[in-house]
């Protein structure tokens, strides 16, 4: 099943009052966020504030239990849908720590993914497409026959996520710290990859806690998360403000205790 991918003016990821538990612990505590198709939003926040939890929840990872609120795409709730249904409706997640699957080559993995999206490409066309996208991310085509993410360096894994983004062309992509752990050149390559797919038919939520990637991929809006909620939203200037002041002032303004949060955050960011 492939959901309708026709751009609709109102098509957006809409998160309302979302509360999420993991193993009985409340992690998200009423998140509100709206990312329309065609816009690039940045989601920032200290370690442990719940950014990855939000990303996983949107894709339907079974570990995360939604206890309140809703999460919709194109006006239809995602909550009753399996992760693969959500992906086929056009959602994509670039994982903070991409999973290795030994024995499954990059080609076979992406063939299966494309087939699931109703794009069962002939072998030649598939290889040409994959080679082109690898090249764009400055990756050798030898990666095609390697097992996906198995033995890849951190940077190679991140670039492979963007290769997949480019191949699958989702309607909404969440990039969870795709920029962290990259050197300057790799960061530029990844950012160029994102800019190449960016357009009117794709919404992008970039999760990061550095402003670096946002120097290359200019966001339309910026949100800040802390303690499982979005505590501030604004334009590009919010990034500069965080760069200057850190998160403390924003946290204080939201009535949160900075030191406690930072402590919890650093403990949580394995």
């Amino acid at each position: 099943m492939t959901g309708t991918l026709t751009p609709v003016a109102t098509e957006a990821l809409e998160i309302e009052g979302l509360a999420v538990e993991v193993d009985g612990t409340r992690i998200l505590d009423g998140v509100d966020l709206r990312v329309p198709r065609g816009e690039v939003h940045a989601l920032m926040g200290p370690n442990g504030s719940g950014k990855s939890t939000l990303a996983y929840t949107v894709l339907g990872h079974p570990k995360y239990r939604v206890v309140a609120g809703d999460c919709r795409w194109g006006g239809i709730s995602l909550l009753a849908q399996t992760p693969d249904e959500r992906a086929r409706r056009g959602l994509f997640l670039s994982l903070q720590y991409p999973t290795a699957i030994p024995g499954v080559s990059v080609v076979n993995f992406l063939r299966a993914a494309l087939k699931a999206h109703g794009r069962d490409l002939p072998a030649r066309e598939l290889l040409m497409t994959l080679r082109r996208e690898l090249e764009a991310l400055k990756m050798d085509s030898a990666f095609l026959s390697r097992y996906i993410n198995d033995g890849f360096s951190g940077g190679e894994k991140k670039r492979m996520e963007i290769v997949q983004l480019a191949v699958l062309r989702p309607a909404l992509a969440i990039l969870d710290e795709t920029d962290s752990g990259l050197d300057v050149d790799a960061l530029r390559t990844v950012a160029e990859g994102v800019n190449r797919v960016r357009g009117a038919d794709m919404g992008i939520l970039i999760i990061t806690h550095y402003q670096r990637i946002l120097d290359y991929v200019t966001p339309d809006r910026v949100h800040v998360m802390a303690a499982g909620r979005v505590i501030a939203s604004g334009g590009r200037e919010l990034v500069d403000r965080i760069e200057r002041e850190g998160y403390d002032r924003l946290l204080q303004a939201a009535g949160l205790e900075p030191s406690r949060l930072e402590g919890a955050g650093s403990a949580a960011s394995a």
Partner: protein
Amino acid sequence: MTTIAPPDPRTAVTPLRPPWAEPDTVTRLRAAGAAAAGTLGWPSSTVGEDWRRTAQIDRFDPGRFRQPDASPTGDRDRASSGLLEMARSAGLASGADHVLADDAGGHLIVAAGWAEPFAIAAARDPGALDRLGTVLAPTARPLVAHNSARFAAGTLVRARAGEPPQTIHLVHIARAGQAAWPRTLVELEPGASLTLVEEWLSADGTGPGLIAPVSELVVGAGARLRHVLVHRGDPQLVTLASSRAVVDRDGAYEVGWVLVGGSWSKIQLDVDLRGPGASARLRGCGLARGTQHLDLQTTQAHDAPATDSDLLHRTVVRDRARSVYGGLIRVAVGAQKTNAYVQNRNLLLSPTAKADSNPTLEILANDVRCTHGATAGPVDPEQLFYCESRGIEREAARELVVGGFLADVLDALPLSGLRSAAVDWVAATLAAPGASRDG
């Protein structure tokens, strides 16, 4: 009142007299087998380690089954052409191969190379079978003792250096109600190279049967034997198999196995590296579903210095099935500079599936590198989620991950036809309906 118990067919074995004129050496081997069956006794799950987790052997009575007739020559009757078809459809035989013997004695030989039934080999040269019983002596194990006394037919395979590469396919068959004890002797002269595929089959699925083959493999200096064991027998076939290769100086033995059939099986697979520089690579997989029980026991014996062996056994266990693995690395005194590795990994597809793994090291030399490892667990949910997050449905995701789990052992199989057939057998086994597969 006294009653005289009938002789127990598990220990009182009468040597078979085949309808072909066998040389004295073979007659003596049968007598030694019958004697050893008496002195060794029937295997028991409570004596020693070998059968500890396969208690089915305690209740098993080979006397329930008839011996197949030993047909001295190859009648290409309807049955055998049907079997040839089976072998062809499995990618095991190409059109150019020819059938040398039929299944009457529990054998089908499909050869693009030099192979002949024992009856013909012995008639040609009374010394042709002299090495029988030298790789696996009748006293080695109870089941080898039984086979030595009872085998009705066998196949001799030979390869010399300088010959074009040979591929031999042997299909060992048990029909319903039969006990087949096929015997195989393979001799690679120094420098020779050969691919041997042995398949265990039941010809019809109408009732229980027993197949208890013994294969003795001699790999000469610098020779290379690629060996594959395929088990696709029906769910009523019991398999009790023994195979041992002895490898001389700089020889190479590569064995693969794909075990997807049968009811319960015990497979004892040994390699003995006897010459310096000899090596063995052992790679295979077992799939068990329903109430299947698959017990693989391997021995990597390093009897010479500078020998290498490397074993991977992967299993995928579904439903209420069970996998048992015992792997021994034995390094003899003086076998220095030896590298040996044994690894068993088991994927459990349901909470009621079970895997027992017991790799052990017995090392009597000091300058060696030996490692072992074993794991068992369900499919990694993070791997499933990763696939699903790319749109792949749960069942397809599971298939992809399980296929990946088996990839390195399936990729190591010789013959591309066999590799793709094996992928199909695996997929069919995984897709077959069964009990709960969550996990």
